C-alpha cells in the first residue's frame, strides 16, 4: 500500500526543483497537445523564443508586455496574500485607464507635462482602488463571495468603457469611427532607453511592495489575516480595516497599470486595453509563490510567452491563443506539484498501530 506522509522539512532547493520539473512537464504536455492539434511543437516553441527575444526590437516589445504584468501581479499579490481572491484585475485596469483618460482629455492644456502625468496616475489609482473597494466592502460587511463579485466588476467596467467609446466620448474628428480622441503629448509617458518609463515604475514598485510586505506592520498583518483569521482576531487586529486597505492597494496598483497602458501604449482609451493582463497576472503571482522579487521573474517569463504567442500567429499562422493554453497548463502542473512539496509518498510501513 502507498501512504502519504507530510514532509517535515523541505529545503528551498528541493521545492524549487519540484516547481522546475512541474514547469518542464507542463511544456512537454503542451507540446504533445500542440502536436495533436496538427502543429510541430518544437517549431512552435522555437519560434516563440525567437519571436520574443530574437532581435533588440522584440526584446523591447517583450519588456513592454512585462511592465503591466509586473505591476498588476504586485497588486494581485497583496490581495492573494490575504486569501482575498481578487480576479477583478481586468476591471480595475480598465477603470484606472478610464480615470486617466478623463484627466488627459480635459486637463492636458492646463498644466505642464509632469503635473498632467501625476494627476493621471493619481486618478487611475484612486478609481482602480474604488473598483476594488466595492467588493471588499461587501466582503467585510456581509461576507459576499469576492471571486464572483470582482469578476462581475470586470464586465461592468468593460461595458462602461464600451459605452463611452461608442457614445459620449466618441471622437468627433474620427469620421464616424468609434474611438476616443488621442492623447496630447502632455499626457503621454516619456521613454528612457527606448522603452517607456513604466519599466522604472515597475522596478521601484517591486522594491516598495517587497519592503511593505516583509518589513512593515501593515504588510505583516495582511499575511496573518491570510494565514489564519482566528490568529488575527486573537491578536486584536482590525480585520475589516486590513482587508479594505489591502484591496485599496491591490486595486490602486491595477489602476496604475491602466494609466500606463492608456498613456504609453494606446495613447487613448480602448476596450481592449487591458489585454487579459488581469488574468495572466493571477498565474504569474501564484508562480511567484506570493513573493514580490519573484514576480519580476515570472512576469518576464510570461511576457516572453505572450510576445512569442503573438509572433507565431503572424509567422506560422498558429493562433496566439496557444499561449493561453500553455499558461493554463503551466498553472495546472504547478498546482499539482505543490502536493509533492508538502507531502511525500512512501510505502506503507508495517508498524502502524
Amino acid at each position, binding site marked *: 500500500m502507498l*501512504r*502519504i*506522509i*507530510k514532509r517535515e522539512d523541505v529545503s528551498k532547493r528541493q521545492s524549487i526543483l519540484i516547481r522546475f520539473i512541474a514547469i518542464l512537464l507542463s511544456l512537454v504536455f503542451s507540446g504533445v497537445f500542440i502536436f495533436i*492539434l496538427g502543429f510541430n511543437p518544437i517549431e512552435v516553441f522555437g519560434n516563440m523564443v525567437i519571436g520574443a527575444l530574437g532581435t533588440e526590437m522584440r526584446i523591447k516589445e517583450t519588456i513592454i508586455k512585462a511592465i503591466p504584468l509586473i505591476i498588476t501581479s504586485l497588486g494581485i499579490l497583496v490581495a492573494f496574500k490575504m486569501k482575498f*481572491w481578487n*480576479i477583478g484585475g481586468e476591471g480595475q485596469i480598465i477603470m484606472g485607464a478610464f480615470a486617466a483618460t478623463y484627466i488627459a482629455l480635459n486637463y492636458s492644456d492646463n498644466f505642464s507635462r509632469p503635473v498632467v502625468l501625476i494627476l493621471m496616475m493619481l486618478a487611475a489609482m484612486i478609481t482602480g482602488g474604488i473598483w476594488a473597494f466595492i467588493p471588499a466592502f*461587501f466582503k467585510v460587511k*456581509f*461576507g*459576499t*463571495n469576492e*471571486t*464572483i*463579485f470582482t*469578476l*462581475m*466588476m470586470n*464586465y*461592468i467596467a468593460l*461595458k*462602461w468603457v*464600451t*459605452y463611452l467609446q*461608442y*457614445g459620449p466620448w466618441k471622437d468627433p474628428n474620427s469620421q464616424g469611427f468609434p474611438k476616443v480622441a488621442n492623447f496630447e503629448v502632455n499626457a503621454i509617458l516619456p521613454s528612457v532607453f527606448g522603452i517607456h518609463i513604466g519599466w522604472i515604475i515597475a522596478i521601484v514598485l517591486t522594491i516598495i511592495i517587497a519592503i511593505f510586505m516583509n518589513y512593515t506592520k501593515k504588510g505583516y498583518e495582511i499575511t496573518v489575516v491570510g494565514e489564519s483569521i482566528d490568529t488575527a482576531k486573537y491578536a486584536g487586529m482590525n480585520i475589516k480595516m486590513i482587508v479594505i486597505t489591502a484591496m485599496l492597494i491591490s486595486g490602486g496598483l491595477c489602476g496604475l497599470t491602466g494609466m500606463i497602458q492608456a498613456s504609453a501604449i494606446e495613447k487613448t482609451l480602448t476596450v481592449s486595453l487591458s489585454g487579459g493582463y488581469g*488574468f495572466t497576472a*493571477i*498565474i504569474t503571482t*501564484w508562480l511567484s509563490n506570493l513573493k514580490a522579487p519573484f514576480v519580476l521573474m515570472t512576469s518576464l517569463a510570461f511576457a516572453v510567452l505572450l510576445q512569442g504567442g503573438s509572433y507565431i500567429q503572424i509567422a506560422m499562422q498558429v*493562433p496566439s*491563443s*496557444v*499561449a*493561453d*493554453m*500553455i*499558461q*493554463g*497548463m503551466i*498553472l*495546472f502542473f504547478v*498546482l*499539482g506539484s*505543490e*502536493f509533492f512539496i*508538502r507531502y511525500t509518498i512512501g510505502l506503507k510501513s508495517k508498524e*502502524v*498501530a
Partner: protein
Amino acid sequence: MWTAFLFAAIIAGTPLLFATLGELITEKSGNLNLGVEGMMLMGAIMGFSVGIWTGNPIMAMIGALLAGAAGALIFAVLTVSLRANQVVTGLALTIFGTGFASFMGKNFVGKVTPPAIKSFFHAFEIPFLSDIPYLGPILFKHDVFVYFGYLVILIASLYLYKTRRGLNLRAVGENAAAADASGINVTLYKYVHIIIGGALCGLGGAYLSLVTIPVWQEGVTSGRGWIAVALVIFASWNPTKAMLGAFLFGGLDILGFRLQSQGIQVSQYLIDMLPYVATVVVLILSTRNNKKEDRPPQDLGVPYYREER
C-alpha cells in the same frame, strides 16, 4: 408580447440552467469549481466542431459532454487527489478552457450551425401541456433540449433529496470526515459528482454555441459561467430554484434587444451591463439572508483527507 418575451427568456436561460445545475452538484460534493466558464467554453467548441464535422446533433452533444467532463476531471485530480487550492485550480481551468476554445475555434469564427442540427433543435409542441393557458405557450413549445433541461432538473431534485446516494452525497459535502467514518467512499463521490457537474457545464456551453447563438464567436459564453456560479448561491443550492434563477437571467440577457425592438431608446452597452449588475445585487442579497436551509454545504472548499496517525 409577454408570452414571447418569457418564451425567449427560457431559451436564453437554458445554457445557464445546465451550467448552474452542474456547479450545484459539484458544490454538493464539497468542492467549489470556479472553472465553469472554462468548461462551458470547452463544451461549446467541442459541440460546435463535432457538429460541423459530423452534422449529427447527438454526436455533437456527446462531444460537448465529454469535453466538459474532461475539464472537470483535471479539476478533480488536482483538488481531490493532490489537494490543490480549489479557487486557483478553478481559475486555471477557466484560463485553459478559454485558450482551448479560442485556439480550436480560430477557423470556425463566423461559421453557422449546420442545417441538420438546426432542424433537430426545432421547436415542437407537447400535446395537452402546451394547451395550458398562459404557461403552455411559454413552457411547452420548445426544442428537445429545453425539455431535457426540465427533465434533468427533476432527476437532480429526486436524486439529491429522495435517494440514498443523494443523501450520501450531501453528507460528503456537509461533513466529509463523518461521511468517511460511516463508510462512504468520499473520494469516489467527489470524483463522480465533479465530473457529472463538468459534463452538464459542457452541455450548457454546446446549447449556447449550437442553438442560442448559432454562430461561432470567440468567448461565446461572455461570463455566463461566472453568472452560473453566482446563481448557485442565489438558488441556495436547490435545483428548482436554480431553474427559476437561470430563466430569470435568461430574461435579463435578452431584455436590451427586446426593449430596442419596442422602440425604446437606451444604449445597448448600458443594457448589456444588466445581467452583471443583477448578479452582484443577487450575490449581496443572497449572502445577507441567513436561513438555515439556505446555507452552503458546510465543507464547501475544504479539502478532505484522512489524518495521518
